[in-house]
């Protein structure tokens, strides 16, 4: 046997080394220490999850109790819009369905592994000569299974809680089956949407808008009775002896399994074309989204879910026609900037739609529920209305390019959010005013809108949270000292502005609340003007 040439030996050694190298083993070696968490941390997270589940069940139970047919509906709404006790027994289930939809879809968007690479972002970030498809397929299947289990748990909770409180498990059964199907369907849709947007190199507003549209449609269906017709059919109770009951349960289970299978197939097909750049980008996107969610910044979460603006655009006619000086320049810039923030208009319109539907939905006519709805939706709409200010406040010296004083610029920046919120409050409280026969509500509406818009603008101009400063450990993780206070300052002020409206909704009469509203709005506008810009 002749000795191999030196070159041949080196080549053989190189081949041997290459074939023995297992990139996935190397990846696991790198990521395992990073992914490993101490037992105490896992227990603490488990405790938080249990606590979270208890809170959700308690909230759902309270909602059911409030809106159930046994509860006396509002007595101050006109009879024409009140659906009496027993009118739509499926409504509690619908409310919980919406809650479940939002929770599950949000969770799906946050934890979708193949695209956003929640647990393996470091793996996607490494340029390794490996086939990532097996890893992707396994992750997709795990996600869909988790979603199915989670939504099934929610469905069971809805069924038992609803039966215990409402006492009518028959009508809840069909809704619960739908809830169980939402999980895999929502998770699969999230994978498909995110995979498609990754392939196109940007994120999409579809998921965010779909959430709101779904909620609006469900509530609209409830308002018009369509959902009640669809879900209120008195199906037999689980365990009943009729053949129809067994058939319906079996068909429902098959429907859920079929949904999971179809969703799995679609999700697997959608992730097939993803390459390393899209996956690495997804990892970065996921980190941003998690940071936004952890900081409780709803606007940042929504923006991280929305599509980036197009790269080129024709000049706006608004600037040519409306700008005649520095003051109008700032107003026009804020308005145009807001108009072009992806999803801002749809989010604002969605809150307006929900605000309009609120008083017309059976069971939600209770003053406390109406008030809570107006406050929550109003603050969300105001946060959205001030999103352009949030963006422009990142460049605190921007307005210095125009011959306008800082004070005048602050007033100009209030115009657009306050106008949007004046419209929002006038429409929603106007409807309430018509339904209740309380004209004072209509008179207070623009003032309340201006006040809430001003507080949201002031909140948008707050200095950014100092994540490099002193931290305190909370249930949400380490949070900078004073961050919660800073984040909620605008919303607390917004609630104060709405106190006069609340007194009217809860029964206060006369025109005194109007005067109080004027004072509260004036105070908040002044506060918004004195809040210093970021620097």
């Amino acid at each position, binding site marked *: 046997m002749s000795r191999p040439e030196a070159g041949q030996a080196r080549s053989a050694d190189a081949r041997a080394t290459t074939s023995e190298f297992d990139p996935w083993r190397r990846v696991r070696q790198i990521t395992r220490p990073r992914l490993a968490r101490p037992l105490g941390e896992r227990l603490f997270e488990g405790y938080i999850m249990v606590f979270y589940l208890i809170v959700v069940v308690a909230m759902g139970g309270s909602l059911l109790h409030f809106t159930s047919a046994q509860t006396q509906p509002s007595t101050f709404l006109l009879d024409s819009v009140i659906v009496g006790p027993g009118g739509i027994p499926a409504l509690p289930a619908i409310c919980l369905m919406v809650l479940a939809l939002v929770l599950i879809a949000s969770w799906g968007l946050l934890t979708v592994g193949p695209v956003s690479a929640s647990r393996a972002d470091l793996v996607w970030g490494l340029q390794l000569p490996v086939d990532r498809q097996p890893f992707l397929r396994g992750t997709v299947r795990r996600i869909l299974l988790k979603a199915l289990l989670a939504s099934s748990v929610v469905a069971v909770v809805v069924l038992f809680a609803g039966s215990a409180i409402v006492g009518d498990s028959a009508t809840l059964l069909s809704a619960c089956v739908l809830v169980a199907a939402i999980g895999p369907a929502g998770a699969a849709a999230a994978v498909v949407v995110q995979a498609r947007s990754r392939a196109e190199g940007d994120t999409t507003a579809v998921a965010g808008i779909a959430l709101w549209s779904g909620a609006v449609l469900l509530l609209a269906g409830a308002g018009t009775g369509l959902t009640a017709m669809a879900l209120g059919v008195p199906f037999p109770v689980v365990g009943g002896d009729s053949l129809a009951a067994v058939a319906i349960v079996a068909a429902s289970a098959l429907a859920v399994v079929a949904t999971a299978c179809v969703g799995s197939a679609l999700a697997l097909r959608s992730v097939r074309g993803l390459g390393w750049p899209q996956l690495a980008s997804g990892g970065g996107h996921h980190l941003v989204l998690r940071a936004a969610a952890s900081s409780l910044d709803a606007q940042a979460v929504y923006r991280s879910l929305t599509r980036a603006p197009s790269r*080129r655009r024709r000049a706006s006619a608004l*600037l040519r026609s409306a*700008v005649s*000086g520095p003051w109008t320049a700032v107003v026009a810039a804020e308005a145009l900037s807001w108009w072009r923030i992806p999803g801002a208009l749809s989010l604002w319109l969605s809150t307006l739609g929900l605000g309009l539907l609120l008083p017309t939905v059976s069971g939600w006519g209770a003053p406390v529920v109406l008030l809570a709805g107006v406050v929550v939706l109003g603050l969300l709409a105001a946060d959205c209305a001030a999103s352009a200010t949030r963006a422009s406040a*990142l*460049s605190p010296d921007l307005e*210095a390019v*125009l011959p306008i004083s*800082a004070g*005048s610029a602050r007033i100009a920046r209030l115009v657009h959010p306050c106008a949007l919120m004046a419209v929002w409050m006038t429409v929603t409280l106007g409807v309430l005013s018509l339904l209740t026969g309380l004209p004072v509500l209509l008179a207070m509406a623009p003032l309340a809108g201006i006040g809430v818009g001003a507080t949201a603008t002031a909140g948008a101009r707050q200095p950014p949270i100092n994540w490099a400063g002193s931290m305190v450990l909370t249930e949400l993780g380490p949070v900078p000292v004073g961050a919660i206070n800073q984040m909620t300052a605008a919303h607390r002020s917004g609630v104060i502005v709405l106190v006069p409206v609340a007194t009217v909704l809860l029964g206060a009469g006369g025109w005194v609340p109007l005067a109080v509203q004027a004072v509260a709005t004036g105070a908040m506008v002044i506060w918004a003007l004195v809040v210093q810009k970021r620097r």
Partner: protein
Amino acid sequence: MPGSPALLDVTALSCGFMGHAVCGEVTVTIASGEVLGIVGWNGAGKSTVLRTVAGRQDALSGSVRFRGEPRQEESARWRRAVSAVFDDDAWFPGLTVREHLHLVAAGHGLAAPDRSVDQELAFFGLEAAAKAFPETLSSGQRRRLLLAAAFLRPADLMLLDEPEQRLDPAMVARLGERIVAAADEGMAAVVVTHDPQFLTRVAGRCLVIDDDVDELTPARAAALITGRPAE
């Protein structure tokens, strides 16, 4: 124009952070039509001095007077008279290049804003990027946009922080000519720079920022920062 009344009067200005001065006190006056260069090593405090003069940072001590009166950096009068370009990118979010320039022109009440915008787009080579959003441009194009906005509007005083950075040599040369032409028409300028050629081309006087602040001729200052003897 030596002998003309001071447009900007800086007296014993101490600049720094959290009570600590980063350089010596600055005392200088600038008249209309003058271009003052500021040079120094990295970290010497050039940009800090310029930001303090512009009012974007609080002074530790000293005073800045504009046209004989204390400077009020948040007043419309100061903002109408002073055009500034700093290192931080600043444009209206959600507006394209053309829209940003149009907003500046119309906001300053120019008679024909569209024509002025077209001229600046052409001068700074931004016609092809007119419909693009600034954040999609290269860093050099973004710098051109900020300079275009600064030259588009009328101003008595221009404050420029390393305007030559990120620009190609041809653009730097044209920018120098533009500054000199504006000074010939009566505008004063304060220019922080690291470029000795750019300094000697545009500046009539020069401050060297360090632990002590000295005023030198641009040629001597250029020689100082390049480590070569002055010609």
